[in-house]
């Protein structure tokens, strides 16, 4: 009996304990709040305040004449230089569309700028108050015939220095110096630099025969890169920038490849001994610069070949009885998009560089050409005929997602990506003659960049510049 009772008690205790467990477990289950899911709002651009000042300050410099007579240029830069530089930085930021300059009246505070300092910075709340997501401050010095800017980028919300650098530039080209700084500021906030210091090459007939021209990415400083008088086409940048590969028709009427350069590469005929005597319609360097895709023909129809820049290791990329043209490398250089008419109409195909995994990616309509692989590798922009007009669409490399980018009742052609992937340049005859336009990927900021006489076509956006503004 006793044992019965104790057993009962024990089981009752156990039962209670188990119930207790259950209750406490369910109580724990209730406790956590749901996750607060935040999705993007309307703000798509950071605001950056730009504050530059001369060092040493002009007043101090006037009081104590240069201590070192050997370097008479070691004086304070004149206020004009500082202002031009600041405006160049602000313009460069504005060009990015993702970091916009803050209006000066929003943040000008007297006596704040003595010299740039490290942290901790007590001004962060004031910066935030003024609406600045980022605070750019720089000291401008004149040194040895150059202008030196030591600058910092501060994240005002986290009160954290994102970047601190020093850069030299020519006092005669403050624009370029400002653009370089602006692009670096964009990189510090988004991970991808801005492209205000990049360039766009294109073909123009403004002086008669089609020649290769180059302009800054904002459309300024349009200048010719070739002027031999022969018919030229298909400019393509070398990956290191500063040099262009293009096609020119020789006197015998056979097209060949040529280089033009600002230095670093010897200008002149390119791959002359490769496919000797055969027409070479177009050449495109791989992103790393170690291979060149060349459109040529051995037996009538155009095919694509791959070759090293020194002419060795020639391989045939396409091999069919149809026409294969317009190669565009994937950014990792493992695949090539190109145009083929093997289906009876020009369509875009993608294949590995060894020719494997060939598949067609465009299916709408009977005219899809000019593939341009995006810098992030996720899209291929191309031109397509929709009804009576040619528009620019983009398709993913598998061909599954296909979306319009630029459309107009006239023709939009030859898309080329900015190296940050945020913009697209193309040629369009929407105002009669063909001009070069650029547009942000989200459809905003459409700008016509050429307005000279003649046809302006085949834009090619340069890679990021790899040299400092002073070089």
């Amino acid at each position, binding site marked *: 009996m006793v044992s019965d009772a104790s057993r009962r008690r024990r089981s009752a205790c156990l*039962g209670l304990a188990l119930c207790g467990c259950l209750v406490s477990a*369910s109580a724990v289950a209730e406790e*956590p709040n*749901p*996750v*607060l899911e935040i999705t993007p709002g309307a703000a798509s651009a950071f605001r950056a305040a730009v504050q530059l000042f001369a060092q040493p300050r002009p007043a101090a410099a006037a009081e104590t004449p240069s201590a070192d007579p050997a370097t008479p240029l070691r004086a304070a830069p004149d206020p004009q230089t500082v202002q031009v530089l600041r405006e160049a930085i602000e313009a460069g930021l504005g060009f990015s569309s993702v970091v916009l300059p803050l209006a000066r009246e929003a943040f000008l505070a007297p006596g704040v700028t003595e010299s740039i300092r490290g942290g901790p910075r007590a001004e962060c709340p004031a910066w935030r108050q003024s609406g600045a997501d980022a605070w750019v401050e720089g000291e401008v010095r004149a040194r040895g015939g150059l202008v030196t800017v030591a600058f910092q980028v501060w994240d005002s919300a986290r009160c954290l220095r994102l970047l601190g650098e020093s850069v030299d530039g020519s006092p005669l080209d403050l624009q370029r110096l400002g653009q370089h700084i602006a692009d670096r500021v964009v990189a510090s906030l988004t991970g991808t630099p801005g492209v205000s210091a990049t360039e766009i090459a294109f073909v123009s007939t403004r002086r008669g025969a089609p020649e290769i021209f180059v302009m800054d990415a904002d459309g300024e400083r349009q200048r010719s890169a070739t002027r031999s008088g022969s018919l030229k086409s298909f400019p393509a940048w070398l990956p290191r920038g500063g040099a262009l590969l293009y096609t020119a028709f020789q006197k015998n009427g056979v097209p060949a490849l040529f280089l033009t350069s600002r230095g670093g590469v010897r200008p002149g005929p390119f791959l002359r001994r490769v496919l000797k005597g055969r027409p070479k319609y177009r050449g495109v360097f791989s992103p790393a610069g170690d291979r060149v895709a060349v459109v040529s023909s051995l037996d009538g129809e155009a095919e694509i070949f791959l070759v090293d820049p020194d002419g060795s290791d020639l391989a045939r990329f396409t091999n069919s009885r149809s026409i294969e043209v317009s190669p565009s490398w994937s950014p990792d250089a493992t695949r090539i998009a190109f145009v083929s008419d093997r289906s009876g109409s020009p369509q875009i195909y993608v294949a590995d560089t060894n020719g494997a995994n060939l598949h067609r990616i465009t299916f709408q309509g009977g005219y899809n050409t000019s593939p341009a692989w995006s810098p992030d590798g996720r899209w291929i922009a191309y031109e397509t005929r929709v009804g009576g007009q040619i528009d620019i669409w983009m398709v993913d490399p598998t061909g599954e997602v296909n979306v319009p980018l630029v459309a107009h009742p006239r023709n939009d052609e030859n898309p080329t990506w900015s190296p940050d992937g945020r913009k697209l340049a193309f040629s369009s005859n929407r105002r009669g003659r063909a001009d070069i336009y650029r547009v942000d990927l989200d459809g905003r900021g459409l700008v016509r960049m050429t307005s000279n006489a003649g046809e302006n076509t085949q834009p090619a956006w340069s890679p990021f510049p790899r040299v400092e503004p002073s070089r």
Partner: protein
Amino acid sequence: MLRGVQRDERRGLRRFVMLSALAHLGIGAAAGLVSTPFARPAPAAIQVELLASLPVASRPEAVTKKPVVRKPVPPRPAKVAPPKPKQVVLPKRPRARPQKAKPVAPAEISYEDALAQLRAELGESEAPTQVASQHDAAPRATEAGGGVPLDAEIRAWMLATKRHVRSVWVTPPEFLDRNLRTEMWIDVAADGQVVGEPEVVAASGDPFWDDNAVRAIRSASPLPKPPEPGRWRLAFSPRASW
């Protein structure tokens, strides 16, 4: 003899009953313990229901529009939502993107306003509220008896906070069609101040997106005044869910 047998039977019966009771309790406990982990998080699903049930919630864009676009397309979410470029487009046409069409967003709504809106909604239509509470607040409601006001307060605060953070969070377009998700814990004081540093517990893989989420929270502090101070888990992603 017979009595001995009966006693034995009775004892056996009692033992059987006790054992079975124990077994039931054991199974019940095991079931309860096993089920709790499932009962616990599932926050994304909860959140979607909860927001969907709220009245003015947010701008028509990401939250409401994209899922609709995505629905018909079958399995692969990453590719499916043919990202932002789809809405991007055509300089010549009137822009279809609500974000731009409405630059002056109803950025901030005060906590009281949100609460008032929510109460109005509760008064007007019961059905959606019940659907929401079924998913979200069922345990709390049963525990607290008339627990609905508490939930409504918290939900109103969540709504107001979400709007406030969205109004200061800068998201360049290049991030919008990517699968990024940053989760962090924040401590919210009684006055809405975010105390200390946000603790990122699940990074997105892109440090700039993570930094940007922390930046958003720092810019947003102080948040709307919460019903009570506490620790909250936040998730920053270009889309509501995928």
